[in-house]
């Protein structure tokens, strides 16, 4: 037996109404014969058979709606026996019940509105970039103040938050502090483009570890420096003082000392300067402070020492309790800190605890440094190079090794007289190197 099914006459035809059978069971049919009329949306269409044979059974009643593919008739091929049945009273394909697809649709009807209100989150207006950086740095964006369009939090705001976070937390919070502090920018810090990442001393794995330790890469360093300096320049009313210091005694003392020591124990001029600053801060404690809702003096003297990276950017590790360290201890501290700073392997406390910054740019050939304070600190000391210069003392002209020291200070915190006392103190200490 051959099956005859409702033909598809067009891609847009889903069903048709059977309007007339042209054949009855037992009729001989030939290929191409019209056996029925079906009404579609386009009108009545004759439907033909594609086989020769005899109609065995008609399975669909006139005026039934017949979906495409429904079995309509059985055809007995020539030379084959078959049962010939009368036209049925009921349809073989119940066209009125829902199709499988319809049932599926009913079953998958979405449930009533879920409790969406419960999911309503606190909406923070922030740029996608700001959100991403905040997430990467583990900062809760909701705590950041936005300065972008319509108060949106933008990249710059997050960068401020990062640098601000580095400073006020003395012991590392959940993760290592990511960004290094301050800068005194006239010189090499400001490479035009983001510098390539500073290379770590050893294997790449080492380097990766180093990065993780500080969360820093050349790019984030640059970003943090930029953010901190911008904030400083925007918020801190700087005043500047400068003094020239005769370094003859200090340098002579240093040369003599070093001559007696093995190479490994030699001192650098920097330690004299650091010690002088530390001692001067004991005398002028208002400069060893942070500006946070007013001047907050800091009990410990932690000097941030600017280390320039050869690849651009700076790191500023803190020398803790500098006033209580001997010159040798300061030298040992530098021996420890500087290589680690260059390898971006500083501890968070070393990045976060500075109470004042010292930058020494003399080796670049610079004489005078006008620095930018690293907030929330209130002062930065800049040292230029030690050069032989004409010098008068007691009316006598001489040539002396001379150092120019500058102070950049926050005028909200202190006034020029305070700064002046401080520089004078440094100068005095450097005249008595043996007492440092």
């Amino acid at each position, binding site marked *: 037996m051959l099956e005859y*099914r409702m*033909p*598809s*006459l*067009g*891609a*847009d*035809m889903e069903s048709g109404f059977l309007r007339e059978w042209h054949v009855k069971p037992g009729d001989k049919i030939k290929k*191409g014969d019209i056996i029925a009329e079906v009404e*579609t949306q*386009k*009108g*009545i*269409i004759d*439907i033909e058979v*594609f086989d020769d044979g005899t109609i065995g059974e008609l399975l669909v009643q006139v005026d039934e709606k017949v979906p*495409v*593919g429904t079995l309509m008739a059985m055809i007995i091929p020539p030379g084959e026996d078959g049962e010939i049945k009368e036209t049925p009273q009921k349809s073989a394909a119940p066209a009125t019940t829902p199709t499988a697809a319809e049932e599926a649709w009913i079953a998958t009807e979405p449930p009533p509105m879920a409790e969406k209100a419960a999911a309503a989150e606190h909406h923070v207006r922030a740029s996608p970039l700001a959100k991403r950086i905040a997430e990467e740095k583990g900062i809760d964006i909701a705590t950041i103040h936005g300065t972008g369009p319509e108060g949106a939090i933008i990249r710059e705001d997050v960068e401020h938050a990062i640098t601000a976070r580095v400073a006020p937390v003395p012991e590392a919070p959940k993760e290592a502090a990511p960004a290094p502090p301050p800068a005194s920018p006239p010189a090499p810090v400001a490479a035009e483009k983001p510098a390539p990442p500073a290379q770590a001393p050893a294997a790449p794995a080492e380097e990766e570890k180093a990065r993780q330790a500080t969360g820093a890469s050349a790019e984030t360093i640059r970003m943090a420096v930029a953010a901190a300096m911008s904030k400083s320049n925007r918020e801190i009313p700087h005043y500047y003082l400068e003094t020239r210091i005769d370094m003859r005694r200090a340098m002579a003392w240093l040369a003599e000392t070093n001559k007696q020591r093995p190479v490994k124990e030699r001192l650098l001029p920097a330690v004299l300067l650091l010690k002088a600053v530390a001692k001067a801060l004991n005398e002028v404690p208002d400069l060893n402070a942070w500006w946070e809702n007013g001047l907050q003096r800091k009990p410990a003297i932690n000097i941030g020492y600017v280390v320039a990276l050869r690849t651009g950017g700076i790191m500023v590790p803190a020398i803790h309790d500098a006033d209580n360290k001997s010159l040798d201890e300061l030298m040992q501290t530098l021996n420890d800190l500087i290589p680690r700073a260059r390898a971006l392997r500083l501890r968070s406390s070393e990045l976060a605890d500075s109470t004042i910054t010292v930058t020494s740019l003399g080796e670049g050939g610079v004489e005078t440094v006008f620095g930018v304070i690293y907030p929330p600190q209130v002062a930065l000391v800049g040292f230029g190079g030690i050069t032989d210069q004409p010098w008068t003392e007691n009316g006598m002209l001489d040539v002396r090794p001379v150092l120019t020291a500058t102070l950049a200070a926050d005028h909200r915190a202190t006034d020029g007289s305070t700064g002046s006392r401080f520089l004078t103190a440094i100068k005095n200490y450097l005249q008595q190197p043996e007492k440092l």
Partner: protein
Amino acid sequence: MAKKGTKTKTTAPLAPELAQKLLYQMLLIRRFEEKAAEMYTKTKIRGFLHLYIGEEAVAVGVMQALRPQDNVLGTYREHGHALVRGLEPNVIMAEMYGRQEGYCRGRGGSMHLFDAKRKFFGGNAIVAGHLALAVGLALADKKMQRNQLTCCFFGEGAMAEGAFHEAMNLAALWQVPVLFVCENNLYAMGTALRYTHAQTDLTLKGAAYGITAAAVDGMDLQAVMEAANTAAATVRKTGKPYFLVCNTYRFRAHSMFDAELYRDKAEVEEWKQRDPIPAFSNTLLQQQLLAEADLQALEARVNEEVQQAIDFAESCSWEPVEEMSRFTYSEKKT
């Protein structure tokens, strides 16, 4: 200039081999199209399906005048032309099934058969859109001094399009070798000629551009052959366009989904009396160029080929979805 076409009674007997070949081609189209209709109702073929049943003498009569290097362009009712041009029934059917073994990887379907190797340029489904292409192909031949013609089939419906008139003007203006063949089956879809053309003498529309024009009874194979031979020879000789109207009739609806509200069944029956296949086979039987047994053998051969085409198409595969974007742009840069 226009030579009014009328029914021409055929005279000269054909060589037996040629005669059998032509009959075979017409039969192949007929059975192929019938099978396509069946497969459409079984949803094996989808989209639009336009059948050539009734018009076979036009394609067979015209194409025998062409050479392999000539270009051929057809409409969306082009299965017959493709078969006569030598495209393989298997591969055509695979294309209509949408299978990747088809001529166009199944991407074109029934309306878009292309075979670059046989210079068969569609399968074009924008009415009259391909006429300008034909002019351009002929222009390239002229510029490159290739002695070949471009044969472009279209329906009378196309002649109401602006694109027809632009193409005729350009062809005449540039004097390019195009044989324009109008298959006038009297209906543009369901709208009769008299409702679509103010001037129903279609040859005048070619003549108006200074193009030699002729009309022929498209139900009479030998008349079409004669007219086409004359036309093709003229194009080759002069390098100029030629306009041939073949008056014909499709026995089936415009496409599958067509209730044929626009014409009487009596009219269809009347035209079926002039079915070119029995007419030609009877002539051959009378002229003893064919025996009854030959006819049966021919039928059997054609049926077998059509069934093979179906079997082949059924066995073919779908183009992987990942390849769908291929050939949006050329893969090789020239």
